[in-house]
């Protein structure tokens, strides 16, 4: 058995301290919000919203109230809106406690690559480099290996980097892993996943 994406989101949600300011990246990390108790944390959307709430009820959606993934959202009581320069001052100034970001590769040193595949279509950087470098803690979420079976937890990234030495924890379908510099420490393995199985799927020593 491995973790489902729901399990991964639940595991990531458990990393969020009460009362913290959190930015959830586009895609899988956005689902983490579904597993946070009401009022547990403040979600920051870098397009200019702090206090991001759940998707609106059908009929209440506003095209000018969106998250960074350009999905319609709501603003919770206590929310604030602001411009992009102010929003990134929050991020770059170290005021956001935690960023949970999608990833393509994470190295044993904690380097993050999540914005471009060599030779692939360039999607752009967006807020990823600012979030990865500016938030106090960074958690990466991704599948443990590529669809072709290539390692994504690696000794050194060979994809274009987003930021160096920033990832504190990687959550995959096999478990939660901490980059230590020499390799990855298995903080937790998904039920039924063996150390051998995780080690074989990891491109750096599993500690």
């Amino acid at each position: 058995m491995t973790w489902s994406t729901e399990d991964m989101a639940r595991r990531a949600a458990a990393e969020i301290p009460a009362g913290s300011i959190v930015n959830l990246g586009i895609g899988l990390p956005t689902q983490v919000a579904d597993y946070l108790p009401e009022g547990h944390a403040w979600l920051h959307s870098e397009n200019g919203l702090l206090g991001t709430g759940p998707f609106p009820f059908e009929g209440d959606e506003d095209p000018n109230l969106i998250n960074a993934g350009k999905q319609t959202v709501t603003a919770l009581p206590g929310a604030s809106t602001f411009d992009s320069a102010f929003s990134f001052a929050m991020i770059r100034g170290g005021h956001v406690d935690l960023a949970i970001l999608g990833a393509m590769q994470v190295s044993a040193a904690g380097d993050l690559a999540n914005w471009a595949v060599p030779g692939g279509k360039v999607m752009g950087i967006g807020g990823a480099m600012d979030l990865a470098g500016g938030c106090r803690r960074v958690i990466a979420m991704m599948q443990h290996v590529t669809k072709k079976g290539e390692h994504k937890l690696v000794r050194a990234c060979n994809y274009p980097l987003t930021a160096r030495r920033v990832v504190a924890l990687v959550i995959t379908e096999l478990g939660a892993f901490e980059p230590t510099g020499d390799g990855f420490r298995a903080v937790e393995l998904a039920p039924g996943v063996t150390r051998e199985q995780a080690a074989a799927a990891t491109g750096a020593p599993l500690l």
Partner: protein
Amino acid sequence: MRHGDKVVASIAAALEPLRDDMTILVGGFGLSGNPEALIRGVVERGVKNLTLVSNNAGNLGKGLATWLQAGIIAKVICSYIGNNEDLHTRMASGEVKVEITPQGTLAERMRAAGAGIPAFYTPTGAGTVVEDGKETRELDGRRYILERALQGDVALVRAAVSDRFGNLRFWRTARNFNPVMATAAKLTVVECDRLVANGAIDPDDVHLPGIFVHRIVHVPEHENAFEYKTTRKRPS
């Protein structure tokens, strides 16, 4: 710049100062907070070879994607392309040059331009391709990149409310890049949903002071296109 009555009667009159080869800053995050009528007006104005500064340069064939379709852009400075196929195809063919910048650096480069700061050090992008060709410096043991201010010839801005001096208010996340771009251009043109008399906005409620605004066009109707309409079921 004189600050008399800034309200102009038409989009065409507001955009008369545009010329070929200009750098145009356009507010919006994706399709949210776009100055829709000004975007259409630039195509009708017939200028070309523009440098466009925008977070996304349109999407879904809409908004600034129409500038790409019209072939009036030589270069785009943006942070994210995503599913913007109009930009992907023209970048691949070489028709349009694309400079991809971290989103916070994009905002800060314009904030700096608006505040008279020619360049600044930031750690964002250090040790990545963003660093290529730029000065770097170690400060207190951390590596920083020197990023240059980014000024526009013209900024096109969407506001929810404007008074006749150009004091602006924005709506929700439609604010995004609009205020910072307004500070960073030689000429700022505002498209407002609602135009009110001076004094109708309390001074404490002004989001962007009118000192940064030069021309105002009142456009009451907007499409406000959705990119991803996500909802949940209303409990019965």
